């Protein structure tokens, strides 16, 4: 159980379907990764404690289902978030467009909270369709831009830790 004295922060995972939001959370929370894609229904809430600048923090991670034509993200899910990770699949250019839409929804629902722009699946870099020029608009306001791989763990810990630091200090 988490320390009741810890600072608790709600962090949403936002992005198109199959960009790797659940995998990032799983890698961060349990250190595990599964190759099999398992679509998220509704919202899955996880939590992880971490120490940031000698301060205990509890990140409550709202892994919101991926937005697509079948499911639109409910704005109410985002309310009360201290920040969010905006996740793009580097191998799919179309996830950039979804990220733009979710960013607009986040601004509307949460206001100008900190967010980390995460370009996931860096283990498949040779198949990437996106490049920094394409996501420079999304990156310009992000507190952090990171290339990650839930599969290898590259950048995952750093992404959450840096965002937590922003939430704590911001």
């Amino acid at each position, binding site marked *: 159980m988490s320390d009741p004295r810890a600072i608790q922060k709600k962090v949403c995972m936002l992005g198109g379907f199959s960009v790797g939001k659940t995998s990032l959370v799983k890698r961060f929370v349990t250190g595990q990764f599964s190759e099999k894609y398992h679509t998220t229904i*509704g*919202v899955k*809430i996880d939590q992880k404690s971490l120490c940031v600048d000698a301060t205990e923090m509890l990140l409550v991670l709202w892994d919101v289902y991926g937005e697509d034509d079948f499911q639109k993200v409910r704005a109410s899910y985002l309310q009360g978030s201290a920040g969010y990770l905006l996740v793009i699949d580097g191998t*799919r250019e*179309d996830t950039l467009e979804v990220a733009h839409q979710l960013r607009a929804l986040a601004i509307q629902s949460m206001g100008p909270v900190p967010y980390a722009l995460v370009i996931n699946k860096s283990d498949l870099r040779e198949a990437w369709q996106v490049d920094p020029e394409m996501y420079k608009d999304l990156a310009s306001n992000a507190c952090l831009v990171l290339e990650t791989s839930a599969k290898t763990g590259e950048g995952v810990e750093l992404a959450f830790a840096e965002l937590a630091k922003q939430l704590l200090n911001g």
Partner: protein
Amino acid sequence: MGVDALYPEILNIFEALIVHVESATQYRTMSGLPCWYPASFSSDSSSTDPREFVQKSFFLQSFLHEAEEFWQSHDHGKLQSGLWSEPALMGDESYLEATALVELGQRFLIVQRYQPEMVTIQPVLQKARDNQLAHGQELEARKHVEAQLGTQLAESEQIRDDVIAVLDHLQLATVMIDESQVITSASPAVFQLFACDPQSLVGELWTHALPLKADQCRLVQEQIALPEIRRSSVAVSLQKQKKSWREVEVEVHEDPRDQRRTILFLKDRTEVEDLRRQLIGHAYFEKLIGKSPAMQDLYQRIQEIAPVDVSVLIQGETGTGKELVAQALHQLSERKDKPFVAVNCAGLTDSLLGSQLFGHKRGAFTGATSDHEGFFEAAEGGMLFLDEIGDMPLATQTTLLRVLQEGEIMRLGESRPRKVDVRVLAATHQNLQEMVERGDFRSDLLYRIRVARLQLPALRERREDIPLLSEAFLGQARVVTKKPEVCDIASEAMQALLRYPWPGNVRELKSTFDYALIHCHGTQIHLSDLPPEICGTPASLVSVRASPRNERKDILSALEEANGKRAQAAKLLGMSRSTFYRRLSELAISPEEQST
């Protein structure tokens, strides 16, 4: 038990947590705790206070904020949260959904649990997304392949354009035909050749589409039928437009990628051929060689005289090529397909020459065992070349004059005249006008045969032609002497050739190369290989004609070397046979001397 008492039992059947929200802090369950309710929150099984559960659920806490707004703004109705899972509370396998209900001002919170298999949307959504991902990957793969193909196509087009540009630059048009002889592609350079859109040829039979004559098509078809290794190029003339002909060389090749297809390479050689013709036309004329102004003038005059059907008198020193000029006149005249008969009038008696020219009847004279057709009859429709006409006996001159005037001959021993249609060309190295004055030649015959006149230049008057002639005679002598390795003339040898006065003219030059090739032992003719009169004597000391005494000696030596064969002796001396016979007569060299 009343019906009202059954409600809690019925509610329990739905395994839902139904909470009456009496205030922000007071929750009361309206049923028992459902079986899925976490045991950790109900250590006392008799307790039905759900506050701890609600407070522990991050989702419910968030939802209650939303529900509070709903309850305040609605008298009745419901607000659903949507599915959520919260492994820390319920484990991984449970999905929950909360409903905020308001009815008659009473607020209720209902939480239901779904097992994963009950969330029917999951597999549908999973399948839809899997399909979408697969479709996206397929699209991506297709885009990748398309991009690759596009790149390859662009590269191929670039290579094709480069090849076509190179071919065009080389003035090489290409026509590709399939196994049915149908044109499948034609390069842009085809337009230059045929003045037609290359695309318009595609789909047509090449034998119809290309402006080739039937015999030209046949030649190309023969090449197509041959194995690649045995093919050779075919030269054809194409009519591009009216009065516009192109000289084209056609090469047939198999398409290396598909042997059923054939590529015709068409090279426009018009310009090359024009230039070659100009070059040859200036340096060569029929069998005559020379590009000097004197020869150019001669070629011009031959072209003017040849088509006019009159007698021609050709004058020039011995060895200047009088017979070649006569042959050129024949070739350029309308009589070119009729006979050309050459007769040497020197050294023959009147009766013998008359018999040869006009023929004789059997028994006309002793030894006339059969009827004999003369040269005039043999040359019917064509030309009769009378070489050394200055040596013709006067009696024969008289007969000849009559033949020329009447157009009739009479064989010796015959009384019946025969019509002849013969153009007479006469040649001599002598001054016939002086002979007329001396009474050795009939003036009326002279006037008759010199309707047109050609004066041939001596070789010493056109020394600039000596290198050109030398090259030609070297080539001929190489063949005769079977010395193909000799292919050059040393500078000092050429200087000597240029200095020498050439009394025997071109014939002597030709003989000089026969001599030089016999003596040459390397690949180059040196000064020492040339006859002594050329290599050892300064030009100023060489007389145009040797003294009679020396000439007599030379002739006798030549006869001795040639074993008495006069033709061979004449050749050794660089003389024509007629000149040789004449000199034999003039120098009174008897047959006995000739044979010894």
